[in-house]
């Protein structure tokens, strides 16, 4: 293995590190733990969290890149291919490598378009030829296909049941040991909803997730679950690869905009005067420029630079990656203003509150007041904004790619899939599966993200807390 660290990978792992260290700090502080405990008690929030965890796991696996070993090279003299693939690609190898000639429908055994082929007897005919990989193990697809799919799906369900039972046993066993309770009692507690954290919801959602994964592992190596696209690549694989792009846009953009919003918002609210004027004029100017135009201009600029300096980008992956990062950057620059405005308002309120004045009466320095008194008391706003913005950004990527100013066309993303589906929808017969796959998986990310962010907002927003207490 020969690891490759792309720019976005680096930032993602930085983010993961930051989250881990935040968790370690928050564990020891009651006031930080309490709202998260409330999130953990929300049934809808936890169901959404389980699904999000699966997405994040796929995204993270897809963020560890390396040069694979060349198959032709001998064992003692390893040679590495020039390709860059990720751990996820490596896991998905049986799906990734099975490329057809062109379009094929989901679970099809034949191509979607007629082709002129030379028959063994020398004559030519226009038929739907068999696929090279999809359903290739069947001798007579007409009769065997449905039974084969049913058996494999059945196997998948059985595996899923076994894995789920094992997982539940391990989870409950581990909990009952931790709590020093008998196994059966803990199990009864969970399923009769007597635990503060809704473990039953987690277990049920886990079951759904396990069923889907297990079905996919049974079927995907033998069929194209979501068909293939124009150049014959598996759509299921593409849409899974798009998860990373979506997550990157949703998280890295926030990571980039956060320092701007925090620093400028707090400074404007705390120091007021000319600092406030400068910050306010900056963001009112920025929000009056149409965001899409700014993004289009920046991306076009980058494209020109890239085509003029091709020597700076060793691989196409590098190129696509840099474009993704640049997109995050420009989205970040256009989206920090709303958070900045919120933070400024809250800081204006906080700076006149009595504990800040008491600190000033002690001669505490401005920097210490900002970090110790003001920052911790605006963190809930930051958190709520970040989780609410996430889904908006994922959707923004789709829109931007659709008008060709999004990620690199070579990169898998839901936006690109939807963009290419624009032409496919005009074909007759219609090629619907690219659009459907992108739609389902995007919904599968954005809907849980919204539900989870609702749970987070309910837990962190002081006004919401007041509503619930009444």
């Amino acid at each position, binding site marked *: 293995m020969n690891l490759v660290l792309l720019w976005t990978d680096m930032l993602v792992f930085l983010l993961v590190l930051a989250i881990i260290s935040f968790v370690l700090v928050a564990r020891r*502080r*009651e*006031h*930080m733990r309490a709202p998260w405990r409330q999130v953990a008690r929300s049934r809808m929030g936890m169901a959404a969290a389980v699904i999000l965890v699966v997405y994040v796991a796929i995204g993270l696996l897809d963020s560890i890149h390396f040069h694979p070993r060349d198959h032709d090279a001998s064992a003692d003299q390893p040679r590495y291919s020039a390709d860059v693939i990720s751990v996820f690609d490596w896991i998905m190898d049986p799906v990734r490598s099975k490329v057809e000639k062109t379009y094929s429908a989901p679970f099809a055994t034949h191509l979607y378009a007629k082709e002129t082929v030379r028959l063994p007897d020398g004559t030519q005919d226009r038929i739907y030829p068999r696929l090279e990989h999809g359903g290739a193990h069947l001798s007579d697809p007409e009769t065997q296909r449905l039974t084969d799919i049913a058996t494999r799906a059945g196997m998948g369900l059985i595996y899923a049941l076994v894995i789920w039972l094992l997982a539940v046993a391990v989870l409950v066993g581990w909990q009952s040991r931790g709590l020093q309770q008998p196994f059966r009692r803990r199990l009864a507690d969970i399923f009769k909803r007597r635990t503060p954290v809704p473990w039953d919801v987690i277990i049920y959602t886990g079951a759904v997730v396990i069923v889907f994964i297990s079905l996919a592992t049974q079927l995907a190596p033998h069929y194209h679950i979501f068909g293939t696209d124009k150049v014959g690549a598996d759509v299921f694989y593409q849409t899974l690869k798009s998860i990373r792009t979506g997550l990157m846009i949703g998280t890295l953009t926030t990571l980039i905009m956060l320092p701007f919003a925090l620093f400028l918002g707090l400074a404007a609210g705390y120091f007021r005067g000319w600092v406030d004027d400068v910050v306010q004029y900056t963001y009112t100017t920025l929000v009056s420029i149409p965001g899409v135009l700014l993004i289009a201009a920046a991306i076009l600029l980058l494209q020109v630079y890239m085509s003029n300096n091709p020597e700076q980008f060793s691989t196409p992956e590098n190129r696509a990656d840099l474009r993704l990062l640049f997109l995050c950057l420009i989205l970040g620059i256009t989206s920090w203003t709303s958070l900045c405005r919120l933070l400024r308002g809250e800081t204006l309120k906080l700076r006149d*509150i*009595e*504990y800040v*004045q*008491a*600190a*000033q*009466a*002690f*001669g*505490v*320095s401005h920097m*210490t007041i900002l970090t*110790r*008194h003001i920052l*911790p*008391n605006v963190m809930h706003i930051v958190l709520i904004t970040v989780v609410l913005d996430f889904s908006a950004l994922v959707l923004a990527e789709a829109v931007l790619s659709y008008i060709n100013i999004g990620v690199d066309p070579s990169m898998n993303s839901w936006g690109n899939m939807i963009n290419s589906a624009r032409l496919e929808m005009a074909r007759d017969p219609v090629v619907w599966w690219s659009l459907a796959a992108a739609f389902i998986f995007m919904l599968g990310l954005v809907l849980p993200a919204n539900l989870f962010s609702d749970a987070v907002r309910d837990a962190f927003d002081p006004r919401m807390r007041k509503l619930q*207490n*009444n």
Partner: protein
Amino acid sequence: MSHKLLEVRNLQTFFGDDDNLTRAVDDVSFGIDRDETLALLGESGSGKSITAHTIMRLLPPAARVAGGEVILDGQNLLKLPERRMRDIRGGRIAMIFQEPQSSLNPVLTAGQQIGETLARHQQLHGSAQRRRTLELLDEVGIPEARSRIDDYPHQFSGGMKQRIMIAMALAGRPDLLIADEPTTALDVTIQARILDLLKSLQRETHMGILFITHDIGVAAQVADHVAVMRHGCIVESNPREAFFARPRHPYTHELFDALPSRERRQREANDTRPDVASAPLLEVRDLKVHFPIRKGVFKRVVGHVRAVDGVSIRIHSGETVAMVGESGSGKTTLGKGILQLLKPTDGAVLFDGDELTRLRGDALRRRRADIQVVFQDPYASMNPRMLVGDIIEEGMLAQRVGGDRHERQARIEQLLQQVGLQAQHKNRYPHEFSGGQRQRICIARALAVDPKLIICDEPTSALDVSVQAQILDLLKDLQARLGLAYLFITHNIAVVEYLAHYVAVMYEGRVVEQGKVDDVLLQPQHEYTRKLLSAVPRPPEREAS
């Protein structure tokens, strides 16, 4: 069958369910006649507001009525359907609240809001409605009602807003008026006028009044009958004369004893005698704090708000100087001007020979240890996200006093004990403490840097009477032991009588009168001081027991 207007029998209102039951109102019975005022007296959390809300059937969803009857003219209100109850509310029983600011809708004019009630309960519309609205505004003493009827709430002062609230309540010609702390948010001179107004309105309309208050003085002024509530129960209920002459229940005695007053000061005789002969610790000379009013694109200064306009006072070590004034008189701004939290426009603040207004940067920072501050709101004055120990330590870190980590921790524990808390409280968060305990923590925080002067900005006005007494005692005790000087900013004359050596009366940014506490309070010279002192409600003398 009784002939009383309102009869409340064995009322019980509970919060929560079986596991976590709070008996907010527990077996409360009382009656109110026409022309009668019942004062429901109690400290915060005693259940007096919940009683009123139960009568109006306006309880929060978490509360439920567990038993009892509320009978208005022979009709049990608790059994009525909600639709009939809406006719009762505003029609037969009206309510006024503590905060006139938040009880009026800011986007409707005074006339519209009163008209709404008239349309609902009196079926008055058009010009008849307007005529009646004008009459009501006249009745509650709004001058030039005709020109003010179309004004919005923000164009009225706090006292005027409360008058409009009363006019709204009267619009439905109620038989019973429930007044929930109607004067608590108002200044004492305005309070006196509102209380007079309620009395005269009662004489005209013969309504019964349920007056909820925490202030014994106010109760003495308005009540015909006084009921004392504690922990959801009525512990004592008597006609006014009997109640004040011979309070019976020990809790009532406690309440009376907790009242700060000159008598209590003489009784306790733990007074310190400040050293007035030596040079003053703090000398404020002709201090002015003006806020510029800016207008236009370039924010040109078009005028000034003269919040503090030429104040001179002296404070000696070991002395308590009280700064008395109503809201808006500039007393809090004066405190901030002395602390250099606000930059004074003009004048001098001499502390121990240093001119504070000229100090900059580090020199000022070092001086800050000598003057500390305790604020009014015990809930806003501590960062909710810091441990109590860290809150107290903050000043020591900023001032680089208190030695190393271990010494600082020891000092924090000692400070907590000094203000009557326990050493292990340092590992808790502020929200785990009550208002009085928080105020003790704030005092400990101020003491951490060994100040010579503490500016107390209304430190007890958010607290109950009994807790206020404890905090005042603590302040006195600390003064005797540490020789502290206090600048005590307050609107409460009784506290001044109890605590201060020297008093200055502030009015519209100026000190109108200052002198020794007995001289000023017993022989006020200035007209405003006399007006202020005569407005203070006082309970009548008790018979010697």
